[in-house]
């Protein structure tokens, strides 16, 4: 993994057993993972008894370095041996590498999910509601007498939800459901490949 000089320096400081004992090391690695996942970067994430005695400026530098390392590892989908060799180069002891890897594994899925969700995408459909109505007459036509559906698709884009409303006849709804079923079949086929 390619790391910038400041990240390397931060991680080397973290590897230093005289500055960080085991419990504060563990607390910092755990806090770094959690800070990535808390929605708006919880400012209290470093407010922990194990980290109280550490110089606050150093702590922040190390925190930045650790989160960068974690993000880079998840982004590249680095395996354990890649992570181990990178940390070894940064003078981490075998024991600390083991601790890092076990905490990393614990949060990896969640961080992956977070990273995969970053970026532009079309509106996502979350839900659908429907109503069956019977159109009897209106201002222009008498004796219409046709059933029809009002469909409302609830979609979400960049955190804003929007309802897409439309009407359809029974035949049109059958057409829509038929197409969605075709799609579901191809998803199933593709998943068996």
């Amino acid at each position, binding site marked *: 993994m390619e790391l910038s000089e400041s990240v390397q320096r931060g991680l080397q400081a973290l590897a230093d057993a005289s500055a960080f004992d085991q419990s504060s090391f563990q607390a910092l690695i755990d806090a770094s993972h959690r800070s990535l996942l808390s929605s708006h970067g919880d400012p209290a994430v470093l407010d922990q008894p194990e980290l109280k005695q550490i110089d606050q400026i150093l702590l922040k530098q190390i925190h930045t370095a650790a989160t960068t390392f974690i993000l880079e590892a*998840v*982004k*590249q*989908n680095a395996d354990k041996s890649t992570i181990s060799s990178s940390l070894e180069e940064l003078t981490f002891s075998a024991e600390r590498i083991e601790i890092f890897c076990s905490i990393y594994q614990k949060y990896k899925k969640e961080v*992956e999910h977070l*990273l*995969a969700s*970053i*970026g532009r*995408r*079309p*509106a*996502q*459909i*979350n839900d*659908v*509601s*429907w109503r*069956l109505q*019977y159109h*009897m007459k*209106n*201002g*222009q*036509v*008498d*004796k*219409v*007498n046709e*059933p029809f*559906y*009002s*469909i409302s*698709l609830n*979609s979400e884009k960049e955190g804003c939800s929007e309802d*897409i*409303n*439309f*009407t*359809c006849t*029974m035949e*049109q*709804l*059958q*057409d*829509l*459901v038929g*197409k*969605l*079923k*075709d*799609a*579901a079949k*191809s*998803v199933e086929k*593709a*998943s068996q490949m």
Partner: protein
Amino acid sequence: MLLVLSEEHKEHLAFLPKVDTTVVGEFGRIALEFLRKGTSPKIYEGAARKLCVSVEIIQHGVEGLMFLMLESSKHMLTEVDFLDSVLVLGFDEELNQILLQLYLKHHSQIRSILSHLPSNLPAYHNLEWRLDVQLASRSFRQQVIPMLTMRLILTRGCVSHSDYSSRVLQTDPSTLLYLISTLEAALAAIKTSHARRILRNIK
């Protein structure tokens, strides 16, 4: 049911017996053309010149015919009711038959034009779909995320000059299955005895 024609409407239609039946036929054709595409003053002027009458008389005649066809189609008059309704106009049998044929030939099309007038709600037109798998992004290099990307095409207003709008939407496989099962429940609702009873009894 019978149509009740206003005095003004009768007056406008009174022009019809004064011209040849082929002209009435032509008026009928123009009236239906106008119902489909909107009126055109040029055609009124042309007809007025040919028949040597004022544009106003032509306009009243054609629009009176349009209104007669609209009202009869709106109420879905039977053949007998239609003939009884135009009886008050005092036209001869031949002209009445021409009007009846015009009505019978076009009433279903007129109803379909009318039925699109009030539906300002967008209506389903088509759905296109594509199965995508997200493989990598700037922030995450190795991923396998199946996604169904869809384009929902909706229409608004009259079919003949429709404006289509389309929306691009995405959903994941599990939501897709949920959508299918929810919409299948909607389709099943129309087959329940409750819905059938209503559909059968309101005629």
